[in-house]
């Protein structure tokens, strides 16, 4: 898909390149609200980058732009050199199938599908055969320690288990970037540690880039790098406590 794009890789080592990003929302009958003000950011390949901010800081808006869920008012986002802000919906879908994974706060598993079916979903969208995707999904679920929950439905699992299914789903297609949006927001502290360790170990193993969005300073500690947002502006960009020299 990215072959169709004329754009070349701008910065070879940056997995995500954000250039002059601005996002305004037009409120009804009012002046536009600026959610993001000229964001410039490079996230390196294999980096676990935390986007930190309180509610209203613009971190969720930034996530939406980075993952191509929403179009910015100005500026561009490049992932692997592809300007995802300029792709149409179907090009985006194809791009996400190959390169992007998601871990959601509320897990977002489909309730009428078993754990295996949920994990295999991105592969199904890609058009993989049933046998092939089930094999991969089962292997992935075993890796997250749910080998004995394969045929369970989401409602038959605890929050922690559900989020592990979510993680398996995010990584099953071997994406380059995984966006994790408050992945532990609904979990207790013990499960939070489990889940974060799992995400981190996957990312390290396959040199995947993780963009972690959170308002929880505890969670930010897991990151290599913490980008702090206030009022739609990056106010600090520091190395995390767990920073390991990569590259």
């Amino acid at each position: 898909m990215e072959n169709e794009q004329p754009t070349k890789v701008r910065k070879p080592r940056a997995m995500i390149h954000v250039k002059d990003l601005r996002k305004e929302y037009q409120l009804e009958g009012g002046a536009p609200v600026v959610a993001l003000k000229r964001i410039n950011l490079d996230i390196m390949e294999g980096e676990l980058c935390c986007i930190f901010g309180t509610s209203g800081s613009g971190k969720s808006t930034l996530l939406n732009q980075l993952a191509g869920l929403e179009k910015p008012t100005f500026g561009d986002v490049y992932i692997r050199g592809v300007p995802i802000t300029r792709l149409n919906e179907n090009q985006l879908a194809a791009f996400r199938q190959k390169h992007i994974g998601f871990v959601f706060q509320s897990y977002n598993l489909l309730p009428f599908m078993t754990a295996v079916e949920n994990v295999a979903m991105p592969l199904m969208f890609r058009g993989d055969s049933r046998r092939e995707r089930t094999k991969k999904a089962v292997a992935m679920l075993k890796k997250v320690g749910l080998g004995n929950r394969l045929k369970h439905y989401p409602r038959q699992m605890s929050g922690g288990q559900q989020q592990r299914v979510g993680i398996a789903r995010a990584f099953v297609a071997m994406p380059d970037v995984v966006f994790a949006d408050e992945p532990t927001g609904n979990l207790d502290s013990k499960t939070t540690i489990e889940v974060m360790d799992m995400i981190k170990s996957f990312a390290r193993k396959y040199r995947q880039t993780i963009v972690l969005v959170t308002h929880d300073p505890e969670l930010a500690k897991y990151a290599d790098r913490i980008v702090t947002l206030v009022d739609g502006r990056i106010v600090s960009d520091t190395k995390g406590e767990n920073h390991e020299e990569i590259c």
Partner: protein
Amino acid sequence: MKVFDMIKMCLQNLTRRKSRTILTVLGVVIGCCAIVTMMSIGYGVQNSQQIMLEGMGDLTLIQVYPGGGNSKLDDAAIKKFQNIANVDVAIGKYQLNNIGMEIYAGDNKRYQMQWAQVVGINEDAMEKFGFELISGSFPKEKYEVLAGQFTAYNLMDTQRPEGHNMVDRWSAMNTMNPETGYYEYNPDAELPAPYLDLQGQTLTLDLYSYENPDQKKTQEIKVSGVVKEDYNKDYATSEGFIFVTTDLLAIQKLIYPSSTQMITYNEIYVKARDISQVADIEKEIKKMGYSTYSMESVRKPLEEEARKQQMMLGGLGAVSLFVAALGITNTMIMSISERTREIGVMKALGCYLGNIRAVFLMEAGFIGLIGGVIGGALSFIISVVMNVLTNEAVKGMEINSLETLWTMITTAMAPENSPMSIIPLWLYGFAIVFSIIIGLGSGFYPANKAVHISAMEAIKRE
């Protein structure tokens, strides 16, 4: 996404909310039933009309009159009519001119007939005209004729006393209708046997011209067959004799040796191969300068009336199917707004828009399909019940075994018994296809709605 995966997903969605799916399908079932049942009643009316018209006369027969000018009913005309496309046969009717006859049968002219209708039909048309033989066969030899069904009752037995020398069929045939209290002509009444069965009899004709009634000439004829009474063909089928035209011409010559070979027919009939061609053939004949009459002029307005009725009934049915379509749309919109987040997640995980649209269209189409199939089956049952309850042909039939029930149903459904509701086979197929189309149509807007749900829905916090 593979098609199989989409079908599976669509079925999963439908079975998730079973009661809602069932209720929506029920709407389609009712709509489909209404349309099929209403149309079937229309077909029933059409069928009954056809049967009624067929009872009134041959629907494929066109009567031709001279229309002024040079339009003569002669052999040339018959040939012309014969050459029109889809004409089965052209029939000329010929009658004797200025000739009287006395008819005798039996030894020593024991039986006498003062009067009989005599008509000549061209030989090649004899069988195709559609005379129904009660006994015997069509004429093969010279001077073989057909006798009418009741011709024998005109025979007078000279060896019986006056007043008792003829068999009275009329008092047997005019029976009182117990419902109306009126006397009615009943052609199927049981009759006393005539004194002489004409089948196979050789009769003697004493022929004379009206100018010289005393100069009689004699000709023998043989009755090769007896035909059923049919006023639409000729009165001779009731009380008379049907000759081959050439024989009748010979008789004419016998009395009037100087008469020309040119014959003018009294009437010409043109028989079409099929009812549907009657109108076209009539048009052709009129172009040649003749006037025509056929049952078409009765059938056409009746048929149009029936079609109008059918449209109206079908329209009524269509209204209920339209309501069902709204039901499908409503159900789909509801289920989509319930699944907004799921659809967002699917998009975020890389599901193509076309796949999302296809899944929802399939759901709606599937509701239509199931509704159409059940609706078709239910319409069949309704049709059976309606026919069994209303058909005169099964009134008073008793059901005491499966077999009698079966005969009752088949009798009530048989088209020749004018059932109230007739469902042609194609109507089932039409109902199912139409329901699927209705389903897809009603799913179109909701599916579009689903496609436009933003992937951001997946991120939203509730």
